[in-house]
C-alpha cells in the first residue's frame, strides 16, 4: 500500500508543481509591463491574440485587422430579420444601399449615383452606378425591388420602415396582410440602372432612410437558388456589394470577421484590411481585453469608465459618442394598475418626475458620458434642416415642468394627495435585467430618490427580461416602467409619434386630442410642406407631453469607447448605423 501511496503522491505533487510553475512565471513576468503593450502592438485583432506562432489562418496573422467589440450576438445577416444595432452594423459593412452615411450622418450617394424628386415630392427616381455583387453579378434596380417587396411581404419588425415611416405606396396594405400581392408595392425597376419609388405623402427625410439596412438590396437569383432559410447563415450563403466581404460567420457565433472587398465600387477609399468582431458580455472583461490588445475598439460602462478616466494611459483613448436612445419612465394611466389608476393623476406623475436627480444618476451610476435629459425628444440626433440646430439643444426649455426640484415635487405631491384622497402609494417599477449593467443601478437609485423625496410613496422593483417587460407594458400590466427608445431615423417624430392615442408604443395609454391633431398635421397634414412650421409645431406637442409628465425622461445614453492608438476614422452615429468603417485606418 505504501508503494501506491507514494506513486499517487508523486503524481499529485507533479501536477501541483506544474501549476505552481505557471504561477511563479506570472510573478516574474508581470513586473515588466511592456509585455502587454508589445502584445497589443503585434496583436492580430482576431481572438487569436499574442501567440502568433500557433496562429492558423493567414488573415488573422495579418495584424492590421482591427478587433471590434460587439455587445450582443449578431442575430441575423438577413435585412428582413435583423433587429439589433450590432446585426445592422455588420450588414452595413458588407452591403451598400442606395445612400450611405457621411461623417456627420447626412445621406450621400452610394449605389445610387444620383436621384430626382418629382415636384409633388411623391416620386423618387434613383440612378444606379455600376457596382458588383461579390459573385460578379451587377447590382441592378431589380435587386432593390425584390428586397423591398420581401420586407413588406414578410411583415417583420422593421417592415414599418416601409409603410409608417417611408410611406411607400401600397406598403401598408401588404404589411398588414390585406393585400397578398406584393408586386403592388410602389417600387419599380424602370431599367437595370433606374429605380422609381412612389410615396403616399411627401417624406422630407426619405433619402436618409436609404442608408438603413431595411432598404438594402438582395440579389434575387442568388437568393432563390439557396435552400430555404439558409440565406445569410454563412459566408457561402451571403453576397456583398459593399466595402467588406463576410469572411467568417456562423449563426450564434461570438466571433466573426469581415475582410476588405477588392471589387467594391469605392474600394480605394477603404483602408482597413478587415475587422474581427468579438462579442464581449461584460464591461470589466472588455476593459481587460482592450488593455491586452485583443480589442482595438471596446465599449465600456459604469465603473470601468471611471477607472479608465483615472488611468493616464487609457484616458486619452477614451472616446464618448452619443448612442441616441433615451431612457425614460412611463406610467400606466389606466384603472387596471397603480392602485386603481392613481398614476392617471398628472400631479402625482409630475411629483415623481421632479423628485429624480437625473444629474446624480448620470454622474454616479451611468458614468459613460450619458446626458441627463429634460426633454421628451433626446438631444443630439435630429438637427433642423434649415438652421442646423439640434431639436433638443436647449435642455431648460421645459424647466417649468421637469427638473430636480424637491420643493416643487412636494408641492405637486401635496396637490396629488388631496386630489386622490390618500397619502400612501405603493407602486411596482419594472425594468429589464438584460439591458445593460447600469439599468439595475439606475432603478435602485430612482427607488431611493423617490422614496426619500416623497414620503409615503413606495416603489417596489421588479426585474424581468426585456421581452417580458415589453409584454407587460403592451398588455397594460404594470405601474411604472423603466424603458428606452432609440431613434430609427433622424427626425423628432421618431419619438413624438409614440404618444399618439392608441399608438402601440403609447404605454401610458394617454390620450390628448390636441396632441393627436398636431402630430397628424406634421405627418400627413397641414405642415407637411412647411418645414419650419412643422418644426415649431413639434415643440408644442413636446410641451403637452411634459406638462402632464406622460413620461419622465431620464438620460440619453452615450457610448464610451476605448480606441487603440493608431486606429482612426471610425464614424460613430447615434441614429441609423452606429459605427461606419469605410474611412477607418489602422496604424
Amino acid at each position, binding site marked *: 500500500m505504501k508503494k501506491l501511496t507514494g506513486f499517487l503522491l508523486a503524481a*499529485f505533487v507533479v501536477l501541483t508543481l506544474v501549476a505552481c510553475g505557471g504561477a511563479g512565471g506570472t510573478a516574474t513576468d508581470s513586473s515588466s509591463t511592456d509585455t502587454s503593450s508589445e502584445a497589443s502592438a503585434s496583436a492580430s485583432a482576431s481572438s487569436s491574440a499574442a501567440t502568433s506562432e500557433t496562429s492558423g489562418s493567414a488573415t488573422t496573422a495579418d495584424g492590421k485587422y482591427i478587433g471590434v467589440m460587439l455587445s450582443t450576438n449578431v442575430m441575423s445577416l438577413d435585412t428582413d430579420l435583423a433587429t439589433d444595432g450590432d446585426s445592422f452594423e455588420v450588414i452595413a459593412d458588407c452591403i451598400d444601399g442606395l445612400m450611405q452615411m457621411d461623417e456627420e450622418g447626412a445621406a450621400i450617394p452610394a449605389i445610387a449615383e444620383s436621384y430626382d424628386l418629382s415636384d409633388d415630392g411623391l416620386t423618387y427616381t434613383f440612378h444606379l452606378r455600376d457596382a458588383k455583387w461579390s459573385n460578379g453579378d451587377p447590382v441592378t434596380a431589380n435587386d432593390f425591388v425584390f428586397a423591398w417587396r420581401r420586407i413588406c411581404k414578410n411583415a417583420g419588425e422593421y417592415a414599418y420602415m416601409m409603410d409608417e415611416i417611408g410611406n411607400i405606396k401600397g406598403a401598408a396594405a401588404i404589411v398588414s396582410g390585406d393585400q397578398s400581392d406584393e408586386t403592388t408595392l410602389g417600387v419599380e425597376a424602370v431599367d437595370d440602372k433606374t429605380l422609381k419609388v412612389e410615396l403616399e405623402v411627401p417624406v422630407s427625410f426619405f433619402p436618409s432612410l436609404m442608408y438603413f439596412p431595411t432598404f438594402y438590396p438582395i440579389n434575387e437569383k442568388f437568393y432563390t437558388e439557396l435552400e430555404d432559410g439558409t440565406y445569410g447563415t454563412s459566408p457561402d450563403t451571403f453576397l456583398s456589394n459593399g466595402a467588406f466581404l463576410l469572411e467568417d460567420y456562423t449563426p450564434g457565433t461570438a466571433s466573426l470577421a469581415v475582410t476588405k472587398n477588392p471589387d467594391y465600387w469605392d474600394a480605394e477609399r477603404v483602408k482597413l484590411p478587415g475587422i474581427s468582431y468579438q462579442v464581449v458580455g461584460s464591461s470589466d472583461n472588455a476593459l481587460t481585453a482592450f488593455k491586452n490588445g485583443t480589442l482595438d475598439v471596446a465599449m465600456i460602462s459604469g465603473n470601468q469608465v471611471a477607472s479608465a478616466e483615472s488611468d493616464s494611459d487609457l484616458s486619452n483613448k477614451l472616446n464618448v459618442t452619443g448612442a441616441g436612445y433615451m431612457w425614460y419612465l412611463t406610467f400606466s394611466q389606466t384603472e387596471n394598475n397603480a392602485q386603481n389608476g392613481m398614476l392617471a393623476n398628472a400631479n402625482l406623475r409630475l411629483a415623481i418626475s421632479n423628485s429624480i436627480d437625473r444629474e446624480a444618476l448620470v454622474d454616479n451610476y451611468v458614468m459613460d458620458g450619458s446626458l441627463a435629459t429634460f426633454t421628451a425628444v433626446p438631444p443630439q440626433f435630429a438637427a433642423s434642416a434649415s438652421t442646423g440646430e439640434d431639436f433638443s439643444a436647449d435642455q431648460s426649455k421645459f424647466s417649468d415642468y421637469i427638473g430636480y426640484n424637491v420643493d416643487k415635487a412636494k408641492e405637486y405631491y401635496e396637490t396629488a394627495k388631496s386630489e386622490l384622497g390618500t397619502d400612501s402609494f405603493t407602486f411596482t417599477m419594472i425594468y429589464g435585467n438584460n439591458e445593460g449593467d447600469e439599468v439595475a443601478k439606475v432603478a435602485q437609485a430612482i427607488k431611493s430618490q423617490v422614496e426619500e423625496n416623497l414620503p409615503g410613496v413606495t416603489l417596489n422593483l421588479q426585474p424581468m427580461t426585456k421581452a417580458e417587460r415589453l409584454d407587460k407594458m403592451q398588455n397594460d400590466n404594470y405601474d411604472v416602467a423603466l424603458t428606452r427608445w432609440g431613434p430609427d431615423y433622424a427626425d423628432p417624430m421618431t419619438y413624438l409619434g409614440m404618444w399618439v392615442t392608441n399608438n402601440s408604443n403609447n404605454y401610458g395609454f394617454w390620450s390628448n386630442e390636441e396632441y393627436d391633431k398636431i402630430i397628424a398635421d406634421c405627418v400627413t397634414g397641414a405642415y407637411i410642406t412647411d418645414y419650419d412650421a412643422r418644426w415649431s409645431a413639434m415643440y408644442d406637442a413636446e410641451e403637452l407631453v411634459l406638462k402632464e409628465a406622460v413620461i419622465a425622461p431620464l438620460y440619453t445614453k452615450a457610448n464610451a469607447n476605448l480606441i487603440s492608438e493608431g486606429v482612426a476614422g471610425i464614424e460613430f452615429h447615434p441614429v441609423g448605423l452606429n459605427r461606419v468603417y469605410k474611412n477607418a485606418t489602422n496604424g
Partner: protein
Amino acid sequence: MTKYVLKRIAMALGTLLLITFLLFVLVRIMPGNPFPSERMSAEQIANKRAEMGLDDPILTQVVNYMSKVLRGDFGKGTSLYNGAPIKTVLGQCISNSFRIGGLAILIGTAVGLLLGITAALNKGTFIDGFATVFSIIGVCVPSYIFLIFLQYFFSYRIPFFPYFFDNSRFLFSSIVPSLSLSLFTMSTIARFTRNEMVEVMDSDYVRLAESKGLQGGALVRKHVLRNALIPIVTVLAPLIVDLLTGALVVEKIYGINGIGKLMVDAIAGEGVDYNYVLALGILYSALYIGIMLVVDILYGVLDPRIRVAAKEGGDA
C-alpha cells in the same frame, strides 16, 4: 440482462415523449412573447402567430411538432437567430459545449480521483487536510470567478492562452474554460472518493484482505476502489450532464458559442423562443435520461449484487 437493458431503453423513450409534451405545454404558458416587438402592429403579430400554428389546439401542435422532429426538423427560431434553421445553430453549440465540457469532465474526474485516493490513503495527514480545504474552496468559488482569474493571469498578464475562445485553435483555447469548469467536479469527486474510500478501507472485508497479505495497488483496485466507485458514479452522472450542457457565465466571459448561453438567450433573451427552448429541452432530457441509463447499467457492472437485485426487480 439484455432483456433488462431493452426494457430500460423502451422506458427511457417513453419518458422522453412525456417530457416533450410537458415542455410543450409549459413553454406556452411561460411569460414573455415569441414575437417580442415594439414596431409590429397587433395585426402583424397575429399573422405571424397564425403562420407558426400557435393558434391551433395544443394537441395538434404537439403532433405536428413531433412529426417534424422525428424527421430531424426542429424548425426556426422566432426571436433568436430567426433566419437560420435551429439544427445549424444547435450543431455548432453542441459541438463546442460537448468538447469543452468533455475536457472538463476528464480533468475533473482524473484529478479528483487522484486527489481523493491520495487523501484517503494518507488520512489525517497534511495531504488529507489540504484535500479537504481544496475541495471546500472548489465548491465555494464559482467557476466563472476561477475563469476570470485564469484569464487575467494567463491570457492578460502573461499572454499565453488566447483571451477569447478561438474556434480555429480549438484544443488550445479550450484549456482555460475547461480547467475552470472542472474545478467543481474535481472538488466533488475528490471529497466523495476520499470519504467513500475511508469508509470502505475500514470495512471488515478489506481488513481481511489486508490480513491475508494483500496490499498496495491490488488491494486498492480490487477491493477498495470498486466498492467506493458506486456512489462516485452516482455523483458524477448529473455533473456530466451539467458540464455537457454548458455554463452560461463561462461561455459569456470567454466568448464561447455554447448551449448554456443559447438556453438563457432562448428563455430570457429578446423573447421566449418556443422552438429553441423545446429543442434544447429535448436535448437536455435525452442527455440526462441517456446518462442515467448508462449509470444504471454500470451499477450492474461495478457491483454484482446490484445486478442480481436489478434482475429480480426487472422481473418482478
